[in-house]
């Protein structure tokens, strides 16, 4: 009997330790960060609660999904700590890294954002499906420098992104604005050959030719502005956020 009692007691101690661990783990767990105030969309509130519960007991991907849902609805400041938790659990989660950089970017914290974009680029394993993010990250670094009015650094960054047309547009524009329209023209002409109806490049062509005091050619370029269309998207913000926006809340219900 004594052996049975001892065995039961041992089992009890083991069980207490295990349950104690589970309870303390839960009590010390990092809580997801979500807006506590009103939300215009009641579906969103439910969605955030579900994603929060999943994140609470989940892995880095669960935290990333919560952060993406918040980002998609414009809650940049609330997405940030959730991205940070995802990265704490898995520092190699490159999508969460990009998301964090983007949040900081949108909140005007350019230096921190640039740092995170750079970390993203270092850690990125260059999967073909994420090629777009690589272009975006390099472009966003250049844009951040522009926002800090650091044109020389921005120029360097745009030069490092030769295959991304918006970056080449920004480079050509910087060249024109800094009195180097002659250097901008080959870039402009190259892209006008590739995208003959690009409004953005026809506008730059007009600016460059005006700057170079070539009035007849400038006049012809100006005419082209009226005949061209907006084909080169210069701001990827909505392109990046749209999938998250569509995935949650009323938009998802509408799409269903």
């Amino acid at each position: 009997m004594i052996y049975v009692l001892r065995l039961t007691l041992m089992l009890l101690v083991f069980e207490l330790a295990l349950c104690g661990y589970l309870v303390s783990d839960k009590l010390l767990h990092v809580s997801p960060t979500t807006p506590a105030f009103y939300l215009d969309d009641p579906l969103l509130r439910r969605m955030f609660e579900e994603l929060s519960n999943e994140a609470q007991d989940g892995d880095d991907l669960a935290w990333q999904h919560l952060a993406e849902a918040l980002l998609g609805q414009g809650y940049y400041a609330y997405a940030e700590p959730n991205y940070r938790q995802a990265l704490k659990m898995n520092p190699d989660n490159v999508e969460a890294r990009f998301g964090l950089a983007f949040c900081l970017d949108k909140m005007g914290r350019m230096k921190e954002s640039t740092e995170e974009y750079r970390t993203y680029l270092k850690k990125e394993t260059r999967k073909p499906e994420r090629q777009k993010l690589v272009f975006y990250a390099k472009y966003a670094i250049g844009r951040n420098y522009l926002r800090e009015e650091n044109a020389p650094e921005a120029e360097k960054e745009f030069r490092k992104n030769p295959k991304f047309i918006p970056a080449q547009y920004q480079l050509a524009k910087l060249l024109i604005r800094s009195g180097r329209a002659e250097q901008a023209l080959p870039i402009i002409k190259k892209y006008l050959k590739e995208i003959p109806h690009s409004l953005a490049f026809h506008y730059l062509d007009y600016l460059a030719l005006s700057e170079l005091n070539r009035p007849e050619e400038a006049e012809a370029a100006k005419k082209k502005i009226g005949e061209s269309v907006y084909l080169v998207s210069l701001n990827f913000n909505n392109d990046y956020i749209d999938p998250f926006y569509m995935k949650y809340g009323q938009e998802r219900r509408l799409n269903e």
Partner: protein
Amino acid sequence: MPAALRLSFLVALLAVIPLVTWFLLPQLRSLRPTAEVYSGGKTYPASPIKFSRVQVGPEFGGYPLITNIQIFNFDGEGTNEVVACDASNNSISLFSLLPDKTWKEQVIISDVAVPGHITPVDIDQDGDLDIIVSILGNIMPDDGIIGRVELFEKQGDEFVRHVILDNVRRVADVQSGDFDGDGDIDLAVGVFGYNRGEVLWLENQGDFKFDRHELLVAPGTIHVPVADYDSDGDLDIAAIVTQDEEELWGFENLGNGQFRNRKLWMTSNLDLGGAGLVKADLDQDGDIDLILPAGDNLEDRDAYPQPYHGCYWFENKGEWNFEKAKISDLGGTYAADVGDLDADGDLDLVLVSMTNDWNRPGTASVVWLENDGQQNFTTWQVASEPIHMVTVAVGDIDGDQKPDIVTGSMNILKPFQRLGRVSAWLNRSKGGK
């Protein structure tokens, strides 16, 4: 205790503990504090001048889209009236203060497709105020040729419509002045467009006919204030170009309808968000300065205040040199106006915000900047709601000779809360502050 009883007790505990744990675990909440949430929103100390807020006009429904507010003496009698462009009703409304201190709204012009701005001017010089309406055609980004300039000629109690500029992209502003010195009133036009835009001047040919002249090809021109910026006796034009360009231009009047384009300032910050341009001799040194409210980031679905938002003063140093100074950091600053709010003899400023951090209650939507006389400004918060304000005018609207503040809200972004339409803050100061 008998061993059997002890055993039963332990077995019972063995069963109960996991059950209780299983039941409790989902209910437990973390004891750790949640992460601190960053806010880029701005709040300021409460204004030492007391203002009382009133809603101008009747109760409203829906999501008002007021694009422009002006204070002037519309009927030439008594106190000033408030005139507003209402883009949700495609109309221009006149608000008059009744003797019982309520406000009466009267639609004076209707069927204007998204009015962006109004300009009162006696264009036919017959002694009454006509109204020029800058027509956007669409409040949302649109590169189509959908704008217009419509002139409403005052004839008795009626306004007669004349379309004086058509075949143009979205028009954001029209200002008046005799640019060619021929005695009649010409117009400067800011064609915002979207990806394409321009600055024009319209030469008055009489009989409500105008010839169109191009001054600049650039997208996103918002305002074109007219003044003698170089103090040479004729009227020049200034323009703020936004939409990734962020440039301040001056068009120097050379006489006989000729202008010289001068790029006065530009920034590489493509996200600055220039939102307007106001002329005023802020330092009262005898020349006209320019004031740039900056905080437009409507290109984002969810706009957020940025560290470079606020208000910039371009001090006129003569010879077309303007020196820039940042005088406010209000996030999402969308409009500015000037007035001596504290009656100390210098010019103060009032700013409104379109996109402060509205998720953080208490962030400022209306502030005033107190000028110490040396152009050092202290920002005082007037209100944190309503939110989403895009236009402001300063002037006495209740006849007490003290400048009041009137604002207009454009509710096109989240959160659709703390809505406003036309709101006024009546200046309750006694003498100074």
